[in-house]
C-alpha cells in the first residue's frame, strides 16, 4: 500500500517541488526570498504529510501535517521575518560560495545522495527516491550553513535539515509515534526561539550577525 502512495505522481511531484524550493534558497541572494522559499518548502512538506495521512488513514499524521503547516510554514517564517526587521539586517545573503557554484554543488549533492541511497540497495525504488530527497535536503541544509556568512542563514540551514529529516521519517515510516513527534516539534520551536534570542544577542554584542566576527575562540 505504501508503495502506491509514494509512487503516486502526486507525492513524487511534491518531493520534486521540495527540491526545487531548496534550490530556490541556494539560488537567492535576498533573505526574504530565502525565508519565502523555506515557507513554501514547509508547506509542501505538510502536503506530503497530509497525503500520507489520507492514504494510511492515521489520524495522528493529520495532526502532524497540521503542526507542520502551522509551525514550519507559518510561525517560523514569521519569526525569521521578525528578526530580520527588528535587527535591521542588510537584506543580502552574504556568501562564502557564490550563487552559481552553490547551485552546482547543490546539484552534485543531490546526485551523490541519490547515488548513496541507491547503492545501499535495500530499499524499493520509490522509497529510495524519497529518502534520497531527504538526504539531499539534509546535506544541502548543511551546505547552506557552511557557505553562508550570516547567523540567520545558519538557522535556516538547520531548519532545512530538519525538513529533510521530516521528509525521510514520513516517507519511510509514516511518521513516528505522536508523542515523539510532538516532542520534536516542541524542540524545534524552542530551538528556533532560542536561536532567535542568540541572534539578537550576537547583534547586540557584535553589532552584526556576520559569523565572521565569531572567530575569537581559537586553540
Amino acid at each position, binding site marked *: 500500500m505504501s508503495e502506491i502512495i509514494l509512487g503516486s505522481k502526486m507525492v513524487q511531484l511534491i518531493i520534486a517541488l521540495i527540491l526545487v524550493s531548496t534550490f530556490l534558497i541556494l539560488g537567492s541572494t535576498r533573505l526574504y526570498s530565502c525565508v519565502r522559499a523555506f515557507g513554501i518548502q514547509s508547506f509542501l512538506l505538510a502536503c506530503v504529510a497530509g497525503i500520507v495521512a489520507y492514504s494510511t488513514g492515521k489520524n495522528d499524521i493529520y495532526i502532524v501535517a497540521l503542526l507542520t503547516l502551522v509551525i514550519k510554514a507559518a510561525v517560523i517564517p514569521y519569526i525569521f521575518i521578525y528578526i530580520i526587521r527588528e535587527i535591521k539586517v542588510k537584506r543580502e545573503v552574504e556568501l562564502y560560495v557564490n550563487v552559481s557554484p552553490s547551485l552546482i554543488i547543490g546539484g552534485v549533492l543531490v546526485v551523490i545522495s541519490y547515488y548513496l541511497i541507491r547503492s545501499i540497495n535495500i530499499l524499493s525504488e520509490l522509497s529510495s527516491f524519497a529518502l534520497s530527497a531527504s538526504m539531499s535536503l539534509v*546535506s544541502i541544509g548543511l551546505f547552506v550553513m*557552511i557557505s553562508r556568512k550570516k547567523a540567520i542563514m545558519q538557522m535556516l540551514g538547520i531548519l532545512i535539515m530538519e525538513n529533510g529529516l521530516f521528509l525521510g521519517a514520513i516517507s519511510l515510516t509514516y511518521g513516528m509515534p505522536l508523542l515523539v513527534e510532538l516532542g520534536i516539534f516542541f524542540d524545534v520551536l524552542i530551538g528556533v526561539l532560542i536561536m532567535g534570542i542568540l541572534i539578537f544577542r550576537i547583534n547586540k554584542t557584535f553589532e552584526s550577525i556576520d559569523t565572521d566576527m565569531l572567530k*575569537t575562540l*581559537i586553540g
Partner: protein
Amino acid sequence: MVSGEMMITYLFSGLILFYFIGAVSAVLLNKKDGVCAFISFISAAVASVFGIIFSLSVIWGDPFSLALPGTSFLQFGIFVDALSAFFILVISVAVFAVSIYSIGYVREYFGKKNIGYLGFLYNIFILSMILVVSANNAIMFLIVWELMSVISYLLVVYEHEKPETRKAGFIYIVMTHIGTGFIILSFLILAGSSGSFNFETFRAAGVAMPPLLRDMAFVFALIGFGTKAGIVPLHIWLPYAHPAAPSNVSALMSGVMIKTAIFMMIRVFFDFLGAGQAWWGYLVLAVGTLSAIIGILYAVVEPDIKRMLAFSSIENVGIILIGIGASMIFFEGGRPGLAAIAAIAALYHLLNHSVFKGLLFMGAGSIIFSTHTKNIEKLGGLIKKMPVSSVLILVGVLSISALPPFSGFVSEWLTFQSLLLGFNFNTFTMIVLSISAAVLALTGALAAFCFLKTFGIGFLALPRSEHAEHATEANTPMLLGMGLFAILSILLGILPFYILPALDRVTRTFIGVSAFSQFFSISTFGTIVLPAKSSLSTPLLLVLMFIFLLVPFLLLYNARKSRAIYETWGCGQPVSTSRNEYTAHAFSKPVEMWFKNLYRPARQTEATYSASPFLKESFRFESRVEQVFEEYIYDPVVRFVMAKSQSAKVVQTGSIHAYLSYIFATLIILFMFVIAGGS
C-alpha cells in the same frame, strides 16, 4: 605468649600504624613546627624499628602474607618473602637514620614552610615504598608504585618557589609516568597470559609464555623500572629531581626509592619470567655498565654537590645492575650457584649504596644547612668549621670510593669476583664480562677521583666564599643521623661475614639454590672464600692496618714538637688566599679533556681591559658541559612534539563554517566506508 606468626603480623601492622601516626600527627600538629617535626619523624623512626625487626624475622624465618578485603576486581594482598624483607630492611635502616637527621634538618624550614605537609608526605612516602616491595597484586602494585612517585614528586617540589625546582619536578613526574606506562605494558602482557593480576599467577604464566611475549615483557619491564632506577639513557630526571628535593628526602630517594625499581627488576626477571633468554642478561649487563660509566663521568664534572651525588647514584645503580646482569647470564646458563654470588654482590652493593649515599646526601644537606650553597666552588675549609660532619662525610666518601676496608670496597670486590666467575662460561661471555669489569674499574677510579675532588675542594684548605666562611657545625640530630650511617658504612665493610649468609637466604628465594658453603664460605677472621682460593678478609686488613700504625708512629716520634707553621709554598710569593686555590673545575679538567667527545665542553671568556691591552681589569670565565642525552635525544623529541602540536592546533580555527565542514566530511567518509562494505 603470642605465636611467631601473630608476632610478625603485629610487627607489620605496627610498622604501618606508626607511619600513619606520623602522617596524621604531622597534619594535626602543623601549627607548631618543632613539635610537629619531632613527633612525625620520631614516629617514622619507631616504625622503621618495627620494619627492621619485621624484615629480619622474615629473612631468617618464613614468608609473610596477608590478604586484604576487596572485590574480585580489586583484590589487594601483601606478600613478603625474604627478597621483599631485604628491601624492607634497606628501607627501614635508611629511614631510621634519615628520620633522626630530619628532626634537625627541617629546622631550616621552620617558619618558612609548612612542616606538617613535609612530615605527612615523608611518612606516606616511606609507607608507599614499603607497600611497593610487599604488594602481591599488579594493580595494587601500580597504585602504590605511582603513589610513591606522586608523593616523591610532591616532596621534590617542596621548595616550589624556585623555578628550577618546578622544572625538576616536572621532568621527574613525566619520566616516571613514561616508565609506569612501560611497566603497565609489561604487566598486561603477563596478565594476558595468566588471566589474573595476582603476582602468584604471574610466576607460573611468565615461564610458560611464548618467547616473543616474554621478550616483550622483559624489555618493557627493563625500560619501565629502568626509568625509575635511573639507567642511562632514561636517567635524565634523576640529576634534576634528587637535588631539588629537601636533602633528607634526597637521601631517601637516592638511597632507597630507586632501589625499589631494582627490586621489581629482580622480581620480574627472575621470579616471573624465569631464566629467560641469554641476551637478557647481556642487555642488563650492558645497560648497567653504560649507566655506571656515564653516571660517574657526569658526576666528575658537576659543580653542584647534590647533582653530583645524583649522577653518582646512576653510577651505583649501574654497578648493581652489572651484578644482576651477570647473575642473569649465569642463571640462564644453568649455573644457579654462580648466579647467586653475582646476585649477592648486587644486593650487597645495593645495601651499601643506600647507606653511604644516604650519608652523603645528608652530608650535602648539612653543608647546605650551614652554608646555603650547593656550589662546590663556593665551599672550602669546612673541615675546620664542621669537624664532626666532615669526618662522617669522609667515611661516606671513602665508602663510595670503594676503598678498603669500607663498605663499598667489599661489594665492588664481590662484583669483580662474580664477573671473574665467567671463566666457567663460553668465549663470548668471558669477553663481555671482562669488558664490563674494565669499565667498572674505570668507573671505580673515576668515582674516587670525583669524591676526592668533592671532599678535597669542599672541605679542605681555605673557604672560597662568604658562605663557607661562616659555616657552623650541624646540629645534634643531624650528626646523630649521619653518625649512624657512618658507623654502618664501616660495619658493612668489616662485617661482611654476617651479611653474606643473610643475603644468601634472600637470593635463594629467586634463584632457588643456596650459594653458601657450596660456592662461598666464611672462614677464620671472617674471611669470605670464593671458589679457587680467592678470598678477602676486611676485618683482618683493618687489624693489620692498626698494627702497622706502629711503624709510622715510631718514625714520627716527637714530630709534633719540632714543627713550624708557615705559609703555603707559592714559588716565593705569598699565596695564602682562597683565590689561589685550585678550583673544582680545574681539578676535573683532565677528565673533561679526556672525554671531550662526550662532554662537548663549551667555554666563554670575557675580559675587560684597563688602559693597556696587557692589563686585564676583570676576567670572566664560563664553562659548561653538554648533557648529551638531553640535548640529542630528549630535546629533539620534545621540540618535534611541540612543533607538531603547534601545527595541529590549526584545526581549531574558530570558524564555525570550518567546524561544520568537519562534520560534513566525517559523514561523507563514513558513508564511503559503508558503501565500500567496511566492517
